[in-house]
C-alpha cells in the first residue's frame, strides 16, 4: 500500500516520480511524470487532484499514452479497429484476434476538457457544420480531420438504431467526409409482448428473443469483417476465450466498484474510479495491460479498506452519479463540497456486467449489446439506477446533463421522477460543459446545498 491516501497535485506527482526514478523504483514502459502530458497540451491535468497511490499513477499514465500504443500497434503490423458508439461489444470481438487492436474514437469526447479547448477540434467541428448544439463528442470529427489524436483506423464500425442523434449525425458527417463506416444496428429494446418468446439479458432486463437474433445477425456481419481485416478465423472457441478475458476485466472492476462505493472511509476518489470504469468499454487499446492496471488498483483499494484508511470526511454525502462529466474536474469538486461517489451510471452499465459464458458466444454478445441502458426506455434505465442506489446505499442522486446531448433533454425528468417515487431521495440535475471554470461558484453552491440536504435528512 502507498502512504496515507491523499489527493495531490500534478506537480507533487512529478516530484514523487522523479524521486522514484532516482531510487530505481521500477515503472511500466509507459510510466513517468504526468507533467509530460500537460506539456504536450493536456493542460487540464494541471488543475486536477490525483490519488497518491502508485496504482493511480499507473492508471493515469496508461490512459494518457493510448495514442502512442495505437501508433506502436500499427507499426508492429497490427490492424486498428475504430469502434464508434459501441460501449463494449465490438472490442470484445476484435480483441479475440491477436492482430487486431480496437479503440474508441468517441473518447475524443474528453479532448476539449483535457486540452482546455485548445486543441482546435471543436473549431474544426464547427466548420463542418457540427456546432455546440451537439454533445462534446463532436470533437471526434476534428480528431479525424487532423489525425493528431489517434491514427485513422483500418476499419471503422458504428452502431446505429437506438443510439443518440448526436453520434448518429456526426458519424454520418464523418462518412460524408470519405471515411467508410460499417454500420450495424442495435434496435430499440422493448418489453416483450405477452406470450412472446423473451430472453433474459445480463443486468436484469429482458428483450424479445427475435431482437436478440437480429443483433446476433448483425454481429455475424461484424465477425466476418473482422476476420477479413485480420486474415484470421474468429471461430466460437476463439471468441469464447475473448469473452472470458473481457469478463476478467469486468470482474476486477465489479470488485473495485463494490469496495470503492461501499467502504467507509472512501478508499479511492471519484476521478480515478471514473477512469477505471472507462477501461471496461475498450481496454484503452491494450486488454492485457488493462487487467494489470485494474489489479493494481484493486490491490491498493483492498489494502486501504483492510487498514481502514481512505478519504475524509467519513460522513461524506453518499452520491449516485448519472452520466459522465464532460469536465473531469467536477469529480474533484464533488469531494471538495463534501460528497463521495456511491454508485454510478455513466451510460454503459451493461459493459460492467459479466457476459454470459454458457450460451453461444455471439448470442452472448448480442444479449450484452441489447442490455445497453441507452437502447431501452429511460424508465428501464431509471429502474436499474434505482436498484443500484439501493445496492450502494446512496443518499442523493446527481444527473449530470451533457451539453447538446439528445438524450439529456428528457431523461433527467424521468429518472428524477422514478428515483423520488421509489427511493424518496433528493435529485439534482446539473449541466457540465467541457470547462466549468466560469460555473464553478454556481456548481459548488448547488453541490454544497445537496450535501447539506443529505446531512439534514440523516438527522430527521
Amino acid at each position, binding site marked *: 500500500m502507498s502512504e496515507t491516501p491523499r489527493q495531490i497535485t500534478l506537480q507533487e506527482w512529478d516530484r514523487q516520480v522523479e524521486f522514484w526514478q532516482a531510487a530505481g523504483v521500477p515503472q511500466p514502459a509507459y510510466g513517468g511524470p504526468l507533467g509530460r502530458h500537460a506539456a504536450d497540451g493536456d493542460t487540464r491535468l494541471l488543475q486536477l487532484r490525483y490519488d497518491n497511490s502508485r496504482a493511480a499513477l499507473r492508471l493515469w499514465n496508461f490512459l494518457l499514452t493510448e495514442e502512442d500504443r495505437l501508433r506502436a500497434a500499427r507499426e508492429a503490423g497490427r490492424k486498428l479497429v475504430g469502434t464508434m458508439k459501441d460501449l463494449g461489444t465490438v472490442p470484445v470481438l476484435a480483441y479475440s484476434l491477436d492482430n487486431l487492436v480496437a479503440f474508441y474514437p468517441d473518447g475524443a469526447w474528453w479532448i476539449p476538457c483535457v486540452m482546455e479547448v485548445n486543441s482546435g477540434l471543436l473549431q474544426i467541428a464547427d466548420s463542418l457544420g457540427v456546432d455546440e448544439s451537439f454533445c462534446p463528442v463532436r470533437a471526434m470529427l476534428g480528431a479525424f480531420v487532423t489525425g493528431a489524436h489517434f491514427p485513422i483506423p483500418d476499419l471503422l464500425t458504428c452502431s446505429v438504431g437506438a443510439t443518440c442523434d448526436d453520434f*448518429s449525425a456526426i458519424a454520418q458527417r464523418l*462518412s460524408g467526409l470519405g471515411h467508410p463506416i460499417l454500420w450495424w444496428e442495435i434496435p430499440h429494446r422493448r418489453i416483450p409482448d405477452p406470450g412472446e418468446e423473451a430472453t433474459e439479458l445480463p443486468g436484469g432486463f429482458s428483450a424479445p428473443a427475435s431482437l436478440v437474433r437480429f443483433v446476433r445477425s448483425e454481429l455475424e456481419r461484424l465477425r466476418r469483417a473482422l476476420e477479413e481485416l485480420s486474415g484470421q478465423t474468429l471461430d466460437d472457441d476463439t471468441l469464447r476465450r475473448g469473452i472470458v478475458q473481457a469478463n476478467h476485466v469486468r470482474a476486477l472492476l465489479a470488485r473495485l466498484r463494490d469496495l470503492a462505493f461501499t467502504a467507509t472511509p472512501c478508499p479511492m476518489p471519484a476521478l480515478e474510479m471514473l477512469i477505471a470504469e472507462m477501461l471496461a468499454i475498450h481496454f484503452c487499446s491494450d486488454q492485457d495491460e488493462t487487467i494489470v492496471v485494474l489489479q493494481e488498483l484493486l490491490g491498493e483499494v483492498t489494502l486501504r479498506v483492510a487498514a481502514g484508511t481512505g478519504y475524509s470526511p467519513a460522513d461524506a454525502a453518499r452520491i449516485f452519479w448519472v452520466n459522465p462529466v464532460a469536465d473531469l474536474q467536477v469529480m474533484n469538486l464533488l469531494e471538495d463540497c463534501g460528497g463521495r461517489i456511491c454508485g454510478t451510471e455513466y451510460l454503459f452499465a451493461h459493459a460492467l456486467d459479466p457476459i454470459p459464458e454458457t450460451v453461444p458466444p455471439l448470442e452472448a454478445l448480442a444479449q450484452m449489446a441489447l442490455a445497453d441502458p441507452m437502447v431501452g*426506455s429511460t424508465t428501464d434505465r431509471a429502474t436499474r439506477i434505482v436498484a443500484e442506489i439501493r445496492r450502494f446505499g446512496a443518499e442523493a442522486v446527481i444527473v449530470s446533463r451533457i451539453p447538446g446531448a439528445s438524450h439529456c433533454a428528457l431523461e433527467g425528468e424521468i429518472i428524477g421522477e422514478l428515483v423520488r417515487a421509489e427511493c424518496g431521495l433528493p435529485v439534482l440535475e446539473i449541466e457540465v460543459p467541457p470547462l466549468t471554470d466560469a460555473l464553478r461558484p454556481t456548481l459548488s453552491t448547488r453541490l454544497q446545498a445537496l450535501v447539506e440536504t443529505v446531512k439534514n435528512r440523516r438527522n430527521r
Partner: protein
Amino acid sequence: MYTCPYVPAQWIAAHGLQPHRLIPAPIEGASTIPRIEGLCPYARAFANDAAAGVEVTGIVLTTACDQMRRVFDLLVHRIETPAFLLNVPSTWQTVAAPRLYLDELKRLGRFLVRLGGREPSKEELARIMLDATASHPRDEDGVHGIPCGCGSGAPVAVVGGPLMQRDRVLFDIVHECGGRIVLDATETGQRSLPAPFDRRRLTDDPLLELAQVYFQIPDVSRRPNGELYRWLAAELPRAGARGVILHHYVWCDKWHAEFERLKEWAHLPMLRLDSEGRGEMDSPRVRNRIHAFVETLR
C-alpha cells in the same frame, strides 16, 4: 394518430381505424411536455397536440430519431391514451433490416387490434392500398400538397425535416419574395410520400409490398443516408431548382449536421433556416433573409 412517414396509413385503415397524420399546429397552452432546453420543438409539439387530441384512440411514434423515442418514454408516463413505438431500423442494406420493419408492422397490427381494430384480410388491405394508389398523394391525410411549381419566380427547393402547420408560411413568403417552391423535400412534403404500389406484388402479399414501399422512403435518419442524396440528385434537376432552403428545428441533430454536406454536394446556393418552433418563419428577419436569398437566384 402519428406523424412519422414510416407509419403506413393504409395499415391503420385496414384495421378499421381512422389514420390521422398529425402535423402539429402547435396548440397554444398544451404542455404535457414543457419546453425544455435541448428538446426538438417538433417532437414536443407533436406529443402535446397528440395528447390534447380528443377522440384519439392511440398514438404511434417511431424510433426514426432519438428525440421521438424519448418523447414516447415521457408520453406513456403522462397520458392515458395508449401509445406505440414502432421500431424503424436505421440501416437498410441488409436482409434483416426490412424484415425487422415488417415484423414491427405486424406488431403494430396487434396493437391496433387491442385498440378495437379488426385483423385485416389480405383482400381488404390490398383494396385499401389500391385505392391509395389511385388517389392523388395531395389528397392523403396530413401530407402537404405538392407544389405546382407554376409562375415565374426563381425556382427553389425546400429540404429538411417536417414543417409544423404554421411554418408552412415559408411557402407564401418565398412566393412573396419573388421565388417559387418547385420541390418540397421536407418530411411533410413529397420526399416522404411512399412510391406507388406494385399491383402484382400487392395482390400476392399486400403487407410485404406495403412494408417494402414504406421502408424505401428516403430519409436523413438512414445509415448510410445515401438514398436521400440519390433521391435529391434525381428530383432537384427534375424540378429545375436553382437554390435550396434547408429548414430544420433547433436540436434536430440529424438535419442540422446535414447542412454543410448538402451544400458541398448540391453545388447550388443554399439558405439555412433553423427554427425554435415559435413561428419565427413569419418574422421580418426570416423574410429579409429569404428575400436576399431569392434575389441571388434571379
